[in-house]
Protein backbone atom coordinates (compact mmCIF):
# COMPACT_ATOMS: atom_id res chain seq x y z
CA UNK A 1 0.00 0.00 0.00
CA UNK A 2 2.69 2.30 1.05
CA UNK A 3 4.92 1.35 -1.86
CA UNK A 4 2.23 2.11 -4.39
CA UNK A 5 1.68 5.43 -2.76
CA UNK A 6 5.39 6.08 -2.94
CA UNK A 7 5.51 4.83 -6.47
CA UNK A 8 2.64 7.02 -7.40
CA UNK A 9 4.59 9.88 -6.11
CA UNK A 10 7.55 8.88 -8.17
CA UNK A 11 5.33 8.63 -11.18
CA UNK A 12 4.09 12.13 -10.69
CA UNK A 13 7.61 13.35 -10.23
CA UNK A 14 9.16 11.55 -13.17
CA UNK A 15 6.45 11.48 -15.74
CA UNK A 16 3.42 13.61 -15.03
CA UNK A 17 5.43 16.71 -14.37
CA UNK A 18 6.30 17.01 -18.10
CA UNK A 19 3.62 15.06 -19.81
CA UNK A 20 1.04 17.13 -18.10
CA UNK A 21 -2.55 16.13 -17.92
CA UNK A 22 -4.43 12.94 -18.45
CA UNK A 23 -5.54 13.84 -21.93
CA UNK A 24 -2.12 13.54 -23.51
CA UNK A 25 -1.39 10.37 -21.59
CA UNK A 26 -4.62 8.82 -22.82
CA UNK A 27 -3.81 9.68 -26.40
CA UNK A 28 -0.40 8.07 -26.07
CA UNK A 29 -1.92 4.92 -24.58
CA UNK A 30 -4.47 4.84 -27.39
CA UNK A 31 -1.71 5.00 -29.94
CA UNK A 32 0.31 2.29 -28.25
CA UNK A 33 -2.78 0.06 -28.04
CA UNK A 34 -3.61 0.56 -31.69
CA UNK A 35 -0.08 -0.45 -32.68
CA UNK A 36 0.91 -3.12 -30.16
CA UNK A 37 -2.37 -4.65 -28.94
CA UNK A 38 -1.33 -6.69 -25.89
CA UNK A 39 -0.16 -5.56 -22.45
CA UNK A 40 3.27 -7.18 -22.72
CA UNK A 41 4.02 -5.69 -26.10
CA UNK A 42 2.80 -2.23 -25.17
CA UNK A 43 4.95 -2.18 -22.04
CA UNK A 44 7.95 -3.53 -23.92
CA UNK A 45 7.62 -0.87 -26.61
CA UNK A 46 7.34 1.93 -24.06
CA UNK A 47 10.35 0.61 -22.17
CA UNK A 48 12.48 0.41 -25.29
CA UNK A 49 11.55 3.94 -26.27
CA UNK A 50 12.29 5.41 -22.89
CA UNK A 51 15.56 3.52 -22.67
CA UNK A 52 16.73 4.80 -26.07
CA UNK A 53 14.40 7.43 -27.42
CA UNK A 54 14.69 8.08 -31.14
CA UNK A 55 12.59 9.13 -34.09
CA UNK A 56 11.91 5.65 -35.39
CA UNK A 57 10.64 4.23 -32.13
CA UNK A 58 8.40 7.17 -31.34
CA UNK A 59 4.69 6.51 -31.31
CA UNK A 60 3.89 10.12 -32.11
CA UNK A 61 3.89 11.50 -35.64
CA UNK A 62 6.89 13.23 -37.18
CA UNK A 63 5.27 16.66 -37.01
CA UNK A 64 5.00 16.37 -33.27
CA UNK A 65 8.64 15.35 -32.85
CA UNK A 66 9.69 18.16 -35.11
CA UNK A 67 7.81 20.59 -32.85
CA UNK A 68 8.75 19.29 -29.45
CA UNK A 69 11.97 17.44 -30.17
CA UNK A 70 12.98 13.96 -29.06
CA UNK A 71 12.68 13.30 -25.38
CA UNK A 72 15.94 12.93 -23.58
CA UNK A 73 17.11 9.57 -22.31
CA UNK A 74 15.77 8.51 -18.92
CA UNK A 75 18.19 8.40 -16.02
CA UNK A 76 16.12 5.86 -14.12
CA UNK A 77 17.29 2.32 -13.60
CA UNK A 78 15.64 -0.55 -15.47
CA UNK A 79 13.56 -1.68 -12.53
CA UNK A 80 12.47 1.86 -11.72
CA UNK A 81 11.51 2.40 -15.33
CA UNK A 82 9.48 -0.79 -15.38
CA UNK A 83 7.62 0.17 -12.22
CA UNK A 84 6.77 3.52 -13.78
CA UNK A 85 5.51 1.82 -16.89
CA UNK A 86 3.43 -0.58 -14.79
CA UNK A 87 1.73 2.30 -13.02
CA UNK A 88 1.15 4.06 -16.31
CA UNK A 89 -0.46 1.00 -17.79
CA UNK A 90 -2.60 0.40 -14.70
CA UNK A 91 -4.00 3.90 -14.83
CA UNK A 92 -4.52 4.45 -18.49
CA UNK A 93 -4.96 1.09 -20.26
CA UNK A 94 -7.95 0.85 -22.53
CA UNK A 95 -8.92 -2.77 -21.80
CA UNK A 96 -9.98 -1.98 -18.29
CA UNK A 97 -12.33 0.67 -19.58
CA UNK A 98 -14.39 -1.67 -21.74
CA UNK A 99 -17.72 -2.72 -20.26
Amino acid at each position, binding site marked *: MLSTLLMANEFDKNCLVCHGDDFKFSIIMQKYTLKY*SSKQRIKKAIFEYLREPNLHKSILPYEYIKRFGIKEKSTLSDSELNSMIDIYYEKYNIQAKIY
Partner: protein
Amino acid sequence: MYSGEKKSVLYVLGLYLSSTLILIIVLFASYYFHEKSQIELSEKEILRSYTLEIQKALLNLSDESNNDYKYPRFENFKSAIYDIDQNLIFSTMDVIIDNFSKEYFSDEKYSYLITPIKPYFLGTAYIIVQKQKKDIFSLSKLLFLASISIIVTVITSYFLVNLLLKPLRENIKLLDNFIKDTTHELNTPITTILANIESLDTSKCDEKSLKKLQRIKIASNSISNLYEDLAYLLLNHKTSLQNQDLNLSDLLKQRVEYFLYISSLKNLKFVLDIEKDIIFFGDKKKLERLMDNLLSNAIKYTNKSTSIHITLNSTSLSIRDEGVGMSQDELKDIFIRYKRFDKTQGGFGLGYSIIKSIADEYNIKIDITSQLNQGTKVTLSW
Protein backbone atom coordinates in the same frame (compact mmCIF):
# COMPACT_ATOMS: atom_id res chain seq x y z
CA MET B 1 -28.49 -75.70 -58.07
CA TYR B 2 -25.82 -77.11 -60.37
CA SER B 3 -22.20 -76.77 -59.32
CA GLY B 4 -21.10 -74.55 -62.17
CA GLU B 5 -24.15 -72.41 -61.70
CA LYS B 6 -23.31 -71.59 -58.09
CA LYS B 7 -19.97 -70.11 -59.12
CA SER B 8 -21.43 -67.94 -61.86
CA VAL B 9 -24.21 -66.80 -59.52
CA LEU B 10 -21.68 -65.70 -56.94
CA TYR B 11 -19.60 -63.86 -59.52
CA VAL B 12 -22.53 -62.00 -61.04
CA LEU B 13 -24.02 -61.23 -57.65
CA GLY B 14 -20.69 -60.05 -56.30
CA LEU B 15 -20.01 -57.82 -59.27
CA TYR B 16 -23.48 -56.28 -59.35
CA LEU B 17 -23.71 -55.77 -55.61
CA SER B 18 -20.26 -54.33 -55.17
CA SER B 19 -20.59 -51.90 -58.06
CA THR B 20 -24.04 -50.74 -57.00
CA LEU B 21 -23.01 -50.47 -53.37
CA ILE B 22 -20.02 -48.36 -54.31
CA LEU B 23 -22.26 -46.14 -56.39
CA ILE B 24 -24.76 -45.67 -53.56
CA ILE B 25 -22.04 -44.94 -51.03
CA VAL B 26 -20.34 -42.46 -53.34
CA LEU B 27 -23.62 -40.70 -54.10
CA PHE B 28 -24.70 -40.36 -50.50
CA ALA B 29 -21.26 -39.41 -49.31
CA SER B 30 -20.87 -36.70 -51.93
CA TYR B 31 -24.35 -35.36 -51.14
CA TYR B 32 -23.49 -35.25 -47.45
CA PHE B 33 -20.19 -33.47 -47.96
CA HIS B 34 -21.71 -31.08 -50.46
CA GLU B 35 -24.50 -30.16 -48.06
CA LYS B 36 -22.00 -29.77 -45.25
CA SER B 37 -19.83 -27.40 -47.26
CA GLN B 38 -22.88 -25.45 -48.41
CA ILE B 39 -23.98 -24.96 -44.82
CA GLU B 40 -20.47 -23.98 -43.89
CA LEU B 41 -20.32 -21.40 -46.67
CA SER B 42 -23.62 -19.76 -45.75
CA GLU B 43 -22.70 -19.75 -42.07
CA LYS B 44 -19.36 -18.18 -42.83
CA GLU B 45 -21.02 -15.42 -44.85
CA ILE B 46 -23.37 -14.57 -42.04
CA LEU B 47 -20.57 -14.67 -39.48
CA ARG B 48 -18.45 -12.42 -41.67
CA SER B 49 -21.18 -9.82 -41.77
CA TYR B 50 -21.40 -9.97 -37.97
CA THR B 51 -17.63 -9.57 -37.70
CA LEU B 52 -17.85 -6.49 -39.87
CA GLU B 53 -20.43 -4.99 -37.52
CA ILE B 54 -18.14 -5.50 -34.55
CA GLN B 55 -15.16 -4.15 -36.42
CA LYS B 56 -17.05 -1.00 -37.40
CA ALA B 57 -18.17 -0.49 -33.83
CA LEU B 58 -14.64 -0.94 -32.50
CA LEU B 59 -13.27 1.48 -35.04
CA ASN B 60 -15.75 4.11 -33.95
CA LEU B 61 -14.95 3.51 -30.30
CA SER B 62 -11.22 3.69 -30.75
CA ASP B 63 -11.52 7.11 -32.35
CA GLU B 64 -13.04 8.46 -29.16
CA SER B 65 -11.15 9.20 -25.98
CA ASN B 66 -13.55 8.24 -23.29
CA ASN B 67 -13.30 7.28 -19.70
CA ASP B 68 -15.00 4.06 -20.63
CA TYR B 69 -16.01 2.22 -23.75
CA LYS B 70 -19.30 0.39 -24.20
CA TYR B 71 -18.69 -2.92 -25.93
CA PRO B 72 -20.98 -3.37 -28.97
CA ARG B 73 -23.74 -5.88 -28.24
CA PHE B 74 -26.10 -7.39 -30.81
CA GLU B 75 -29.18 -9.51 -30.45
CA ASN B 76 -28.59 -12.29 -32.95
CA PHE B 77 -25.01 -13.10 -32.11
CA LYS B 78 -22.36 -13.00 -29.42
CA SER B 79 -18.74 -11.99 -29.79
CA ALA B 80 -15.37 -11.67 -28.12
CA ILE B 81 -12.17 -9.74 -28.75
CA TYR B 82 -8.64 -11.01 -28.10
CA ASP B 83 -5.29 -9.27 -28.26
CA ILE B 84 -2.31 -10.26 -30.39
CA ASP B 85 -1.05 -12.69 -27.74
CA GLN B 86 -4.47 -14.35 -27.68
CA ASN B 87 -5.41 -12.96 -24.29
CA LEU B 88 -9.10 -12.22 -23.81
CA ILE B 89 -9.94 -8.53 -23.80
CA PHE B 90 -13.71 -8.66 -23.58
CA SER B 91 -16.42 -11.20 -24.35
CA THR B 92 -20.19 -11.62 -24.40
CA MET B 93 -19.83 -15.38 -25.14
CA ASP B 94 -20.01 -18.17 -22.57
CA VAL B 95 -16.98 -19.99 -23.91
CA ILE B 96 -13.30 -19.12 -23.95
CA ILE B 97 -11.56 -19.86 -27.22
CA ASP B 98 -8.04 -21.23 -26.91
CA ASN B 99 -7.53 -22.78 -30.32
CA PHE B 100 -7.00 -20.11 -32.97
CA SER B 101 -5.79 -22.47 -35.68
CA LYS B 102 -9.12 -22.79 -37.53
CA GLU B 103 -10.83 -19.77 -39.01
CA TYR B 104 -14.27 -21.38 -38.97
CA PHE B 105 -15.44 -24.11 -36.62
CA SER B 106 -18.57 -25.31 -34.91
CA ASP B 107 -19.74 -27.32 -31.96
CA GLU B 108 -23.14 -28.81 -31.19
CA LYS B 109 -25.05 -25.57 -30.78
CA TYR B 110 -22.97 -22.79 -32.31
CA SER B 111 -20.74 -21.92 -35.21
CA TYR B 112 -17.77 -19.56 -34.80
CA LEU B 113 -15.61 -17.35 -37.00
CA ILE B 114 -12.21 -15.97 -36.00
CA THR B 115 -11.04 -12.91 -37.93
CA PRO B 116 -7.69 -11.21 -37.38
CA ILE B 117 -7.80 -7.42 -37.70
CA LYS B 118 -5.33 -4.62 -37.97
CA PRO B 119 -4.88 -1.96 -36.71
CA TYR B 120 -5.69 -3.16 -33.20
CA PHE B 121 -8.81 -1.17 -32.35
CA LEU B 122 -9.04 -1.11 -28.57
CA GLY B 123 -6.12 -3.55 -28.65
CA THR B 124 -8.14 -6.11 -30.59
CA ALA B 125 -6.11 -8.43 -32.82
CA TYR B 126 -8.84 -11.12 -33.20
CA ILE B 127 -12.60 -10.82 -33.40
CA ILE B 128 -14.55 -13.99 -32.68
CA VAL B 129 -18.26 -14.14 -33.44
CA GLN B 130 -20.65 -16.87 -32.37
CA LYS B 131 -24.13 -17.70 -33.68
CA GLN B 132 -26.70 -20.44 -33.34
CA LYS B 133 -25.94 -23.25 -35.74
CA LYS B 134 -28.29 -23.91 -38.60
CA ASP B 135 -28.86 -27.63 -39.09
CA ILE B 136 -30.99 -28.40 -42.09
CA PHE B 137 -30.42 -32.14 -42.30
CA SER B 138 -29.36 -34.90 -39.98
CA LEU B 139 -26.75 -37.54 -40.62
CA SER B 140 -28.95 -40.28 -39.18
CA LYS B 141 -31.70 -39.55 -41.69
CA LEU B 142 -29.18 -39.83 -44.51
CA LEU B 143 -27.86 -43.13 -43.21
CA PHE B 144 -31.41 -44.43 -42.99
CA LEU B 145 -32.02 -43.53 -46.64
CA ALA B 146 -28.76 -45.15 -47.67
CA SER B 147 -29.67 -48.38 -45.87
CA ILE B 148 -33.03 -48.47 -47.61
CA SER B 149 -31.29 -48.12 -50.98
CA ILE B 150 -28.88 -50.91 -50.12
CA ILE B 151 -31.70 -53.24 -49.09
CA VAL B 152 -33.59 -52.50 -52.32
CA THR B 153 -30.39 -53.20 -54.27
CA VAL B 154 -29.88 -56.55 -52.58
CA ILE B 155 -33.46 -57.60 -53.25
CA THR B 156 -33.32 -56.60 -56.93
CA SER B 157 -29.99 -58.34 -57.31
CA TYR B 158 -31.59 -61.59 -56.17
CA PHE B 159 -34.28 -61.25 -58.82
CA LEU B 160 -31.74 -60.16 -61.41
CA VAL B 161 -29.58 -63.21 -60.90
CA ASN B 162 -32.55 -65.54 -61.09
CA LEU B 163 -33.67 -63.85 -64.30
CA LEU B 164 -30.21 -64.25 -65.74
CA LEU B 165 -29.91 -67.88 -64.93
CA LYS B 166 -33.44 -68.98 -65.68
CA PRO B 167 -32.92 -69.83 -69.39
CA LEU B 168 -29.63 -71.52 -68.59
CA ARG B 169 -31.16 -73.57 -65.85
CA GLU B 170 -34.03 -74.62 -68.01
CA ASN B 171 -31.71 -75.76 -70.77
CA ILE B 172 -29.51 -77.75 -68.47
CA LYS B 173 -32.52 -79.33 -66.86
CA LEU B 174 -33.86 -80.29 -70.28
CA LEU B 175 -30.56 -81.84 -71.27
CA ASP B 176 -30.16 -83.69 -68.05
CA ASN B 177 -33.64 -85.10 -68.18
CA PHE B 178 -33.08 -86.20 -71.74
CA ILE B 179 -29.88 -88.00 -70.85
CA LYS B 180 -31.48 -89.61 -67.83
CA ASP B 181 -34.41 -90.82 -69.83
CA THR B 182 -32.28 -92.08 -72.68
CA THR B 183 -29.86 -93.99 -70.56
CA HIS B 184 -32.70 -95.47 -68.60
CA GLU B 185 -34.28 -96.58 -71.86
CA LEU B 186 -31.00 -98.13 -72.92
CA ASN B 187 -30.85 -100.40 -69.94
CA THR B 188 -33.58 -102.76 -71.01
CA PRO B 189 -32.38 -103.60 -74.52
CA ILE B 190 -28.77 -103.90 -73.37
CA THR B 191 -29.66 -106.35 -70.65
CA THR B 192 -31.75 -108.30 -73.15
CA ILE B 193 -28.87 -108.50 -75.65
CA LEU B 194 -26.30 -109.57 -73.12
CA ALA B 195 -28.56 -112.07 -71.43
CA ASN B 196 -29.48 -113.69 -74.72
CA ILE B 197 -25.89 -113.87 -75.91
CA GLU B 198 -24.88 -115.56 -72.71
CA SER B 199 -27.61 -118.12 -72.94
CA LEU B 200 -27.03 -118.88 -76.62
CA ASP B 201 -26.24 -122.51 -77.37
CA THR B 202 -22.91 -122.19 -79.14
CA SER B 203 -22.46 -125.88 -79.74
CA LYS B 204 -24.46 -125.70 -82.93
CA CYS B 205 -22.55 -122.76 -84.46
CA ASP B 206 -19.73 -122.84 -86.97
CA GLU B 207 -16.47 -121.00 -86.42
CA LYS B 208 -17.41 -117.97 -88.48
CA SER B 209 -20.66 -117.53 -86.61
CA LEU B 210 -18.86 -118.02 -83.33
CA LYS B 211 -16.46 -115.21 -84.20
CA LYS B 212 -19.35 -112.98 -85.15
CA LEU B 213 -21.04 -113.82 -81.88
CA GLN B 214 -17.87 -112.86 -80.01
CA ARG B 215 -17.81 -109.49 -81.72
CA ILE B 216 -21.46 -108.91 -80.92
CA LYS B 217 -20.75 -109.80 -77.32
CA ILE B 218 -17.84 -107.37 -77.11
CA ALA B 219 -19.79 -104.61 -78.80
CA SER B 220 -22.71 -105.15 -76.43
CA ASN B 221 -20.30 -105.06 -73.54
CA SER B 222 -18.97 -101.73 -74.78
CA ILE B 223 -22.46 -100.32 -74.96
CA SER B 224 -23.13 -101.70 -71.52
CA ASN B 225 -19.97 -100.01 -70.21
CA LEU B 226 -20.96 -96.70 -71.72
CA TYR B 227 -24.36 -97.03 -70.14
CA GLU B 228 -22.77 -97.82 -66.79
CA ASP B 229 -20.55 -94.75 -67.05
CA LEU B 230 -23.41 -92.44 -67.86
CA ALA B 231 -25.61 -93.97 -65.19
CA TYR B 232 -22.80 -93.53 -62.70
CA LEU B 233 -22.37 -89.87 -63.51
CA LEU B 234 -26.03 -89.03 -63.54
CA LEU B 235 -27.36 -91.15 -60.72
CA ASN B 236 -24.29 -91.44 -58.55
CA HIS B 237 -25.68 -89.62 -55.58
CA LYS B 238 -28.75 -91.83 -55.62
CA THR B 239 -27.03 -95.23 -55.56
CA SER B 240 -26.00 -96.70 -52.25
CA LEU B 241 -22.42 -97.33 -51.37
CA GLN B 242 -21.51 -100.90 -50.49
CA ASN B 243 -17.99 -100.83 -49.20
CA GLN B 244 -16.27 -104.13 -48.49
CA ASP B 245 -12.79 -105.59 -48.37
CA LEU B 246 -11.92 -106.26 -52.01
CA ASN B 247 -9.07 -108.26 -53.41
CA LEU B 248 -7.75 -105.61 -55.78
CA SER B 249 -5.30 -107.97 -57.46
CA ASP B 250 -8.02 -110.42 -58.45
CA LEU B 251 -10.37 -107.63 -59.49
CA LEU B 252 -7.70 -106.09 -61.69
CA LYS B 253 -6.90 -109.37 -63.38
CA GLN B 254 -10.62 -109.90 -64.00
CA ARG B 255 -10.96 -106.54 -65.73
CA VAL B 256 -7.85 -107.15 -67.82
CA GLU B 257 -9.36 -110.42 -69.00
CA TYR B 258 -12.58 -108.60 -69.82
CA PHE B 259 -10.66 -106.37 -72.23
CA LEU B 260 -8.44 -109.11 -73.58
CA TYR B 261 -10.35 -109.66 -76.80
CA ILE B 262 -10.58 -105.98 -77.72
CA SER B 263 -6.92 -105.48 -77.04
CA SER B 264 -6.08 -108.40 -79.24
CA LEU B 265 -7.74 -106.63 -82.16
CA LYS B 266 -4.99 -104.00 -81.96
CA ASN B 267 -2.39 -106.62 -81.30
CA LEU B 268 -1.69 -105.26 -77.84
CA LYS B 269 0.13 -107.04 -75.09
CA PHE B 270 -0.53 -106.66 -71.39
CA VAL B 271 2.56 -106.60 -69.20
CA LEU B 272 1.37 -107.30 -65.69
CA ASP B 273 3.26 -106.73 -62.44
CA ILE B 274 0.53 -107.36 -59.91
CA GLU B 275 1.32 -108.15 -56.31
CA LYS B 276 -0.84 -110.85 -54.84
CA ASP B 277 -3.78 -110.23 -52.52
CA ILE B 278 -3.78 -106.46 -52.29
CA ILE B 279 -6.83 -105.61 -50.18
CA PHE B 280 -8.77 -102.40 -50.61
CA PHE B 281 -11.92 -101.33 -48.77
CA GLY B 282 -14.37 -100.00 -51.32
CA ASP B 283 -17.46 -100.50 -53.44
CA LYS B 284 -16.96 -103.24 -56.02
CA LYS B 285 -18.96 -101.61 -58.77
CA LYS B 286 -17.15 -98.31 -58.38
CA LEU B 287 -13.69 -99.78 -58.44
CA GLU B 288 -14.68 -101.83 -61.48
CA ARG B 289 -15.75 -98.58 -63.14
CA LEU B 290 -12.43 -97.02 -62.22
CA MET B 291 -10.30 -99.79 -63.61
CA ASP B 292 -12.45 -100.21 -66.72
CA ASN B 293 -12.02 -96.58 -67.57
CA LEU B 294 -8.28 -96.66 -67.03
CA LEU B 295 -7.88 -99.77 -69.14
CA SER B 296 -10.17 -98.64 -71.94
CA ASN B 297 -8.30 -95.32 -72.18
CA ALA B 298 -5.00 -97.12 -72.42
CA ILE B 299 -6.32 -99.47 -75.09
CA LYS B 300 -7.94 -96.68 -77.07
CA TYR B 301 -4.98 -94.37 -77.23
CA THR B 302 -2.04 -96.70 -77.45
CA ASN B 303 -0.55 -97.54 -80.82
CA LYS B 304 -0.97 -100.87 -82.55
CA SER B 305 1.28 -103.68 -81.52
CA THR B 306 2.48 -102.04 -78.34
CA SER B 307 2.38 -103.09 -74.72
CA ILE B 308 0.34 -101.84 -71.86
CA HIS B 309 2.22 -102.02 -68.57
CA ILE B 310 0.15 -102.53 -65.44
CA THR B 311 1.67 -102.40 -61.95
CA LEU B 312 -0.13 -102.96 -58.66
CA ASN B 313 1.29 -102.88 -55.15
CA SER B 314 -0.07 -102.10 -51.70
CA THR B 315 -0.02 -98.34 -52.22
CA SER B 316 -0.33 -97.72 -55.92
CA LEU B 317 -1.73 -98.82 -59.24
CA SER B 318 -0.19 -97.61 -62.47
CA ILE B 319 -1.07 -98.12 -66.13
CA ARG B 320 1.28 -97.07 -68.86
CA ASP B 321 0.60 -97.11 -72.60
CA GLU B 322 2.82 -96.39 -75.60
CA GLY B 323 0.49 -94.28 -77.61
CA VAL B 324 -0.18 -90.78 -78.83
CA GLY B 325 0.27 -89.09 -75.46
CA MET B 326 -0.94 -85.61 -74.51
CA SER B 327 0.57 -82.12 -74.40
CA GLN B 328 0.93 -80.18 -71.15
CA ASP B 329 -2.06 -77.98 -72.02
CA GLU B 330 -4.28 -80.99 -72.64
CA LEU B 331 -3.18 -82.52 -69.33
CA LYS B 332 -4.47 -79.48 -67.48
CA ASP B 333 -7.98 -79.89 -68.86
CA ILE B 334 -8.13 -83.64 -68.62
CA PHE B 335 -10.62 -83.89 -65.85
CA ILE B 336 -13.21 -81.60 -67.41
CA ARG B 337 -16.21 -83.69 -68.28
CA TYR B 338 -17.00 -84.10 -71.99
CA LYS B 339 -13.66 -82.61 -73.00
CA ARG B 340 -12.03 -84.56 -75.82
CA PHE B 341 -8.62 -84.05 -77.31
CA ASP B 342 -8.54 -86.93 -79.69
CA LYS B 343 -11.85 -87.48 -81.38
CA THR B 344 -10.62 -90.33 -83.52
CA GLN B 345 -11.64 -92.84 -80.91
CA GLY B 346 -15.20 -93.41 -79.78
CA GLY B 347 -16.66 -92.34 -76.49
CA PHE B 348 -18.06 -89.22 -74.85
CA GLY B 349 -15.00 -88.01 -72.93
CA LEU B 350 -16.38 -89.25 -69.65
CA GLY B 351 -13.50 -91.49 -68.71
CA TYR B 352 -11.16 -89.31 -66.74
CA SER B 353 -13.93 -87.39 -65.05
CA ILE B 354 -15.32 -90.67 -63.73
CA ILE B 355 -11.85 -91.76 -62.69
CA LYS B 356 -11.35 -88.54 -60.79
CA SER B 357 -14.74 -88.63 -59.12
CA ILE B 358 -14.25 -92.14 -57.79
CA ALA B 359 -10.65 -91.43 -56.80
CA ASP B 360 -11.71 -88.37 -54.84
CA GLU B 361 -14.31 -90.40 -53.01
CA TYR B 362 -11.67 -92.78 -51.66
CA ASN B 363 -8.94 -90.15 -51.26
CA ILE B 364 -6.87 -91.71 -54.01
CA LYS B 365 -4.26 -89.41 -55.54
CA ILE B 366 -4.03 -89.33 -59.34
CA ASP B 367 -0.78 -88.59 -61.10
CA ILE B 368 -0.64 -88.40 -64.88
CA THR B 369 2.54 -88.04 -66.87
CA SER B 370 2.45 -87.91 -70.61
CA GLN B 371 4.64 -87.08 -73.55
CA LEU B 372 3.41 -86.51 -77.06
CA ASN B 373 3.98 -89.55 -79.28
CA GLN B 374 5.54 -91.47 -76.43
CA GLY B 375 2.65 -92.48 -74.23
CA THR B 376 0.79 -91.78 -71.06
CA LYS B 377 1.26 -93.15 -67.56
CA VAL B 378 -1.50 -92.88 -64.98
CA THR B 379 -0.61 -93.62 -61.37
CA LEU B 380 -3.15 -93.92 -58.59
CA SER B 381 -1.79 -93.89 -55.06
CA TRP B 382 -3.43 -94.20 -51.66
